[in-house]
């Protein structure tokens, strides 16, 4: 299935491995991505708290470009981008006056025909259709599925059904052989955009999430959002400093977990880029020597 | 020639707007004399044909008014009426009948002032539009009287 693709800034920067792993698993999942030409910033996280029009105009331009390129569905892996694009589509659908106003600003025709999808829903759908029989190395570990905020809020845009206790990622993880744990912080706030400005707050909030996952026996935390990943992975030192505990639990993108289960080389999946070393796949017989190396590297952004 | 004085017919429900107009009276508020009220139990009773009949009998403007949604004495008559009005208005507009001559309103039994304002406003608007000569008329009392007087004159 061919599907539009909007990487946004993080998939080219801090979460390159999300991008890499999505692309790596795409063929097996029966997905083909077409990047939106000439795309721009989605506006997150500042625009909507500063300028109402700008907050809608930026995503609207992206959607208009996707429309122009003949796309029916647009995969937006970053949850923040997803939220902005989906919210814009929703508001413009509801409010004809606003739509007119925004069309005037972006000076492009806009119909709202492009469906905005996040990685979780696209991968769930693709897994159901295409993964059967392809799992060669079941990811047999206890995982804490962490949804964060944007996949479940606001309810009008939520793609998960039980928004306070979503199950979609848990089900997907079962498909690739993992054992999702029942835990309390699936949809708690990680601190998100305060990562840089108030690292102390992020350390507190994300610390609680990690603590609960660890205490309930999770071996990995699975996420679908670059922001969550940054806070849980990159801010680990700050978290440990504040909680006076050490946590070795790695944080993986769901695409990386699927990739591992498909037997894809960890380096291809970008596992070596993580701050917290990833010890998967653990000494499996056909694991390449290469795949063990990355865990020694710290946030190796060397290529 | 004296200024044109329009004839405005108001179809009102007994429980809200008629009572509201009573309150206008007890409060001694003044409004234009041009309005003639047809009292009905409920806006639900107002057949759309009555409006055309009013135009056909010389009305230059029409007011239809009843209870606010939720206040209907019969609990839902006004909701049913509102649906009919929605379609009827679209049809009149499509047929080229000037909707500035047909006004819909909710006036409660407590809104004496709103009634006075409404009547004045509609009368002023219709006065500005002039007599509704475009709309074909029936032979009615006045035209009959005119006819009679012509004959007598002969």
């Amino acid at each position, binding site marked *: 299935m061919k599907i539009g693709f909007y990487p946004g800034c993080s998939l080219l920067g801090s979460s390159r491995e999300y991008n890499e792993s999505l692309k790596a698993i795409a063929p097996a999942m029966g997905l083909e991505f077409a990047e939106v030409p000439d795309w721009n910033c989605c506006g997150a996280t500042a625009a909507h708290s500063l300028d109402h029009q700008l907050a809608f105009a930026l995503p609207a331009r992206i959607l208009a470009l996707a429309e122009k390129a003949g796309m029916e569905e647009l995969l937006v892996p970053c949850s923040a981008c997803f939220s902005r694009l989906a919210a814009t589509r929703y508001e413009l659908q509801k409010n004809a006056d606003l739509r007119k106003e925004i069309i005037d600003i972006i000076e492009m025709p806009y119909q709202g025909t492009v469906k905005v999808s996040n990685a979780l829903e696209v991968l769930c759908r693709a897994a159901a259709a295409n993964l059967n029989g392809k799992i060669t190395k079941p990811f047999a570990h206890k995982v804490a599925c962490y949804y964060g905020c944007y996949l479940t809020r606001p309810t009008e845009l939520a793609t998960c059904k*039980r928004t306070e206790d979503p199950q979609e990622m848990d089900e997907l993880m079962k498909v690739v052989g993992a054992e999702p744990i029942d835990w309390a912080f699936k949809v708690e706030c990680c601190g998100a955009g305060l990562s840089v400005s108030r690292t102390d707050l992020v350390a507190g909030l994300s610390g609680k999430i990690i603590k609960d996952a660890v205490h309930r026996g999770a071996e990995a935390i699975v996420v679908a959002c670059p922001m969550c990943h940054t806070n849980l992975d990159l801010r680990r030192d700050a978290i440990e400093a504040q909680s006076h505990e050490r946590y070795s639990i790695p944080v993986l993108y769901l695409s990386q977990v699927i990739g591992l289960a498909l037997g894809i080389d960890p380096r291809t999946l970008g596992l070596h880029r993580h701050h917290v070393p990833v010890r998967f796949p653990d000494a499996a017989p056909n694991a390449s020597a290469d795949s063990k190396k990355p865990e020694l590297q710290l946030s190796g952004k060397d290529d | 020639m004296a200024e044109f004085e329009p004839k405005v017919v108001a179809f009102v429900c007994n429980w809200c707007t008629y009572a509201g107009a009573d309150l206008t009276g007890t409060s001694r508020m003044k409004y234009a004399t041009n309005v003639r009220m047809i009292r009905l139990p409920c806006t639900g009773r107002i057949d759309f044909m009555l409006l055309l009949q009013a135009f056909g009998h010389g009305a230059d403007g029409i007011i239809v008014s009843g209870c606010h949604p939720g206040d209907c004495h019969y609990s839902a008559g006004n909701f049913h009426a509102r649906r009919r009005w929605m379609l009827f208005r679209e049809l009149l507009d499509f047929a080229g009948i000037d909707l500035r001559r047909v006004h819909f309103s909710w006036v409660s039994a407590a809104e004496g002032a709103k009634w006075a304002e409404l009547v004045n406003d509609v009368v002023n608007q219709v006065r500005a539009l002039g007599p509704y000569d475009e709309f074909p008329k029936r032979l009615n009392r006045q035209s009959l009287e005119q006819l009679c007087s012509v004959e007598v004159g002969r």
Partner: protein
Amino acid sequence: MPRIGVFICHCGENISGTVDCAEVAKVSAEFPGVVHSVDYKYMCSDPGQNLIKNAIQEKKLTGVVVAACSPRMHEPTFRRACAEGGLNPFLCEMANLREHCSWVHEKLPATTEKAIDLVRIMVEKVKRNRPLFSINVPVTKTALVLGGGIAGIQAALDIANAGHKVIMVERQASIGGHMAQLSETFPTLDCSQCILTPRMVEVAQHPNITLYTYAELEKLDGFIGNFRAVIRKKAKSIDEKLCTGCGVCFQKCPNKKILSEFNTHLGTRTAIYVPFPQAVPNKPVIDREHCMYFQKGKCRICEKFCPTKAIRFDQQDELIEVNVGAVVAATGYEVKDTDFFPEYGYGKYPDIITGLQFERLASASGPTGGVIKRPSDGRIPETIAFIACAGSRDPAKGISYCSKICCMYTAKHAMLYKHKVHQGKAYVFYMDIRAGGKMYEEFVRRTIEEDEVHYVRGRVSRIYDRDGKLVVRGVDTLLNAKPIEIEADMVVLATAMVAQPDAEELAQKMKVSYDENKFLSEAHPKLRPVEMNTAGIFVAGACQAPKDIPETVAQASAAASKVAGLFSKDELSREPVVAVVSRTGPPEFSNCVGCFLCESACPYQAIEHEEIKTRDGKLIKTVAKINQGVCQGCGTCVALCRTKSIDLQGFTNEQIFAELVSL
């Protein structure tokens, strides 16, 4: 030929101040059909009314127009005068010269012209008036009370004590309702069962009350004074006449692990059971879904031990048809279960309970004998958190209303807990404290000040488990909006009061309206709070909106007095302003084509199907028929009817056309 009399009132100077009444009378005299036209200072005075009465007789009037004040003021007066003068009262109409003319216009020729027009309009209308006669319907002086909670009990007793028959229908095996489940009642802390059970017994023993428990309303037809109800008596599987209520059967019943509804699933019962020891009637029923004999075909132990041989496994549901004149709906409420709250674990934590469950824990007759214990492990909680507004006032959860009783019972719960567990800590999370009621605010203050319950103003965002504790995460908005966390052993949610799950179905059976929350709608929120928009059906208690016991009892007594008022006459008389379906001669017999599109437009479900048959019983056609006992005369069907087969007496199409033609 019509002979119309016109009477112009000066109303002192109220009308004559701006309208030239003599001129109006003079012009009116010339209208076709007018044979008498006078003006007078005060038409509503005795001499004024005599003018009308005399003219009716002397001039043989066939219609009267009184041009005076608003018909909403004096129409009854002048109609009565006409009746006394020998004219059908519905041949009298009023032109509103005061409120709609003299008071709202200046003294100008146009004002007098308008007055003349108003008279002319009414003359044209009254010419087409037909004599109408009040509609009399007999009244069956028996009331049907649906629901045997405190609302139904109060209403039934009041009606019965007024000397009328009452049929009470309760769907559970015992009357008593939710009030029987409560421990103590605010603000006096008197024991709920102690005040309720004597009333339950009174119902059972009252000579005027017939009680059907384990029964439901199946069907309701008819109209005010003349309802016909079908009641389904579910099979109790016992012969009530033989059963003495000795209780041997439920002591012997082997299936003892069924969760008790009365104990809110915190205790158990047997398959043959009475819901609680003080049940009325105190005779068991067999719950067939859990009875081994009904499920597996073997057992019959109760039958073996029953000393009076009262067990009847082959008993069938029984349908009873009764005629009643009035219905009181007192079907009560439900509370939302804890699984309604995703943020509090979707009901997965056993120590998060509802307020109603807490009542059972606190009740001396409850599953723990009144000791507050955790359902999970039976430990006495050292810290307990109460969360008010669980679901209520939360549009995101679809419940935007206030459940009204939670502030008070939460205070009561916290107080009871502190009385029972002195060293325990109690927290109450609240949005606002609504303690409007006699001694209510004082009660809450006592909870806070004397019993030292910690009130935290803020919402709880999440509850999760950590090391055997329930972590309650919320915010204290009074402490600079700081997030707070409490490690509790038990959490009590004051879950929203909601309509019964089948409230909508019941409303449709009774053909009454209900609101978006499925609570039954009263006819007018202020002035007709216990009547429903279908005449003859009344409402009491929490099936109409959340309310506490005193309010429920007050409403039930009010409904009972309405019923007693209705039953005080043998016949009901009402204005004949109703819709009628016209009938014509053969071959059509009626212009109605039986499309019945009017049926759903009628706010009162007054439109019925009538079959026109030949003499030998062959169906010619089915046409609409208006039930005149039910019709309130709004005329919505009249405007909808394409063939104009329906007309509204008093406001006929002909009359309104005549008014328009006379413009």
